């Protein structure tokens, strides 16, 4: 019984890692850069949902949609103002910009919302589902369902819409995409919007479990590990990488000496990098010249 409960809480934690990892991978695939402010975008999403739902008293679903929508706008604006001017600059400089953005987002949210942890009021807070002896919190069920829903809509978006197909095209070959008439710049802005809203969804989902504060974005580092475990170029890989780390953490917390749980993500990362240096789901291919 304990095992099933651990599995479920591990999976829900893993889904959150996976969604942030998805944000990393989306941007990486489109622009070949790593956005180290991804966790902070998640944090902003959580704060915005808190603002809409708990401060402005929006109905719950409307507040969530407003938060995700605002994060899409923030993602797009960030790309337009901070990332696009960096086109053509060395990868390292772009990476520094994203680290800087992370500091700005944390400072700004500390300034706006204070460093006191906040809680998001959810209609499902504290409710539990009891099957025989297994007790599952509603938060966990919501996380699992929402992740499945989100992933399914992303799959449909990429497979069936023009914009989704154009994004895939641009991520495979920017030059070719431009020549078939795709505006790669517009696509990059859009990718940031999608990535920021996926991260925001992660933040909103984890808010009832963890509490919202400006430092919560640091779990982005674990999500980064999840993305690498998954192959850092594979969208399903990101989710599965997240699940592996989430579940392993829960089990390490119970069966291993204290402290192991916190480093499980990195231990898995090291093992995967040694055994399969390109990650579990390799989609990267070395470009031949």
């Amino acid at each position: 019984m304990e095992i099933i409960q651990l599995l479920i809480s591990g999976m829900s934690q893993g889904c959150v890692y996976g969604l942030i990892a998805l944000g990393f991978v989306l941007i990486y695939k489109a622009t070949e850069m790593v956005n180290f402010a991804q966790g902070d975008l998640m944090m902003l999403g959580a704060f915005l949902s808190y603002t809409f739902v708990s401060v402005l008293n929006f109905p719950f679903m409307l507040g969530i949609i407003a938060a995700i929508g605002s994060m899409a706008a923030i993602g797009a604006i960030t790309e337009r103002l901070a990332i696009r001017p960096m086109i053509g600059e060395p990868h390292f400089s772009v990476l520094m910009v994203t680290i800087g953005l992370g500091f700005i987002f944390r400072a700004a949210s500390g300034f706006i919302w204070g460093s006191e942890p906040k809680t998001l009021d959810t209609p499902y807070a504290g409710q539990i589902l009891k099957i025989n002896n297994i007790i599952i919190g509603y938060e966990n069920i919501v996380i699992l369902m929402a992740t499945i829903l989100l992933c399914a809509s992303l799959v449909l978006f990429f497979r069936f819409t023009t914009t989704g197909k154009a994004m895939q095209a641009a991520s495979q070959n920017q030059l070719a995409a431009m020549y078939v008439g795709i505006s790669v710049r517009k696509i990059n802005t859009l990718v940031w919007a999608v990535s920021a809203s996926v991260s925001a969804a992660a933040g909103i989902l984890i808010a009832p479990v963890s509490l919202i504060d400006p430092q919560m974005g640091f779990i982005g580092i674990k999500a980064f590990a999840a993305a690498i475990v998954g192959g850092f170029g594979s969208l399903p890989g990101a989710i599965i990488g997240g699940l592996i780390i989430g579940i392993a953490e829960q089990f390490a917390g119970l069966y291993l000496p204290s402290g192991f749980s916190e480093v499980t993500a990195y231990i898995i990362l090291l093992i995967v990098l040694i055994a399969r240096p390109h990650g579990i789901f390799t989609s990267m291919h070395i470009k031949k010249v």
Partner: protein
Amino acid sequence: MTILQVENASISFGGVKALQNISFHVKKDEVFSIIGPNGAGKTTLFNLISRIYDLKEGSLFFKGVDATNLSTHQIAKLGIARTFQNTELFEQETVLNNLLIGNHIHRKTSLLQEIIFDRKTRNQEMEFRENVEAIIDLLDLQAYRYQKISNLPYGIRKLVEIARALSMKPELILLDEPSSGLNPEETEDLIFQIEDLRAELGITVLMIEHDMNLVSQISDRVMAIADGQTLIVGHPKEVQDHAEVIRAYLG
């Protein structure tokens, strides 16, 4: 009727003048070839026309529209398609998907219509598929429809790139060394295929090519360039026999 006009195009990289005062025009329905030794600036000229590089001086007109300051994807929308010397394809996709994305500029549906997959979207998908199938038939690519690009031999990839350019329904196609890397039979086929582009689809061809046999067989006019400057524009025979062209090639 002139379809493409390049006037006094100049560009330099650092201190190197890659192109100096190049002027020429391409007439509708002709096959116009550009020849010249390696490093003459042929591909640079293509990159100028497809707006990867900015013109330092000069101007570019397509169908009478000033295209000097348009961006690459706008050039595509205007009706200019292109292939590359070493092919730029979507490597992880099938031949079919590569051709379908070529229809991108002809999309008329909104995101909402695509999400609900309404009648207009369905008709559009069908129309695109028919368009692509016609091109597959024209270039004899039936056997490769569902194959991934990365698994295909070089000659077929070059053909797929031409097919993708055609699925954009362009008025002008730029072919960058279409015969490089092809075997003699494939080159022989290429001659007929380029003839077909013009005869069946009414597409004007602007081509960079090294194979003088191919150039003289299908070109209406030829421009020879060397060291970023025009040597001569004229009929294939005339250009081939030109003293400066011979000197440029032999050093």
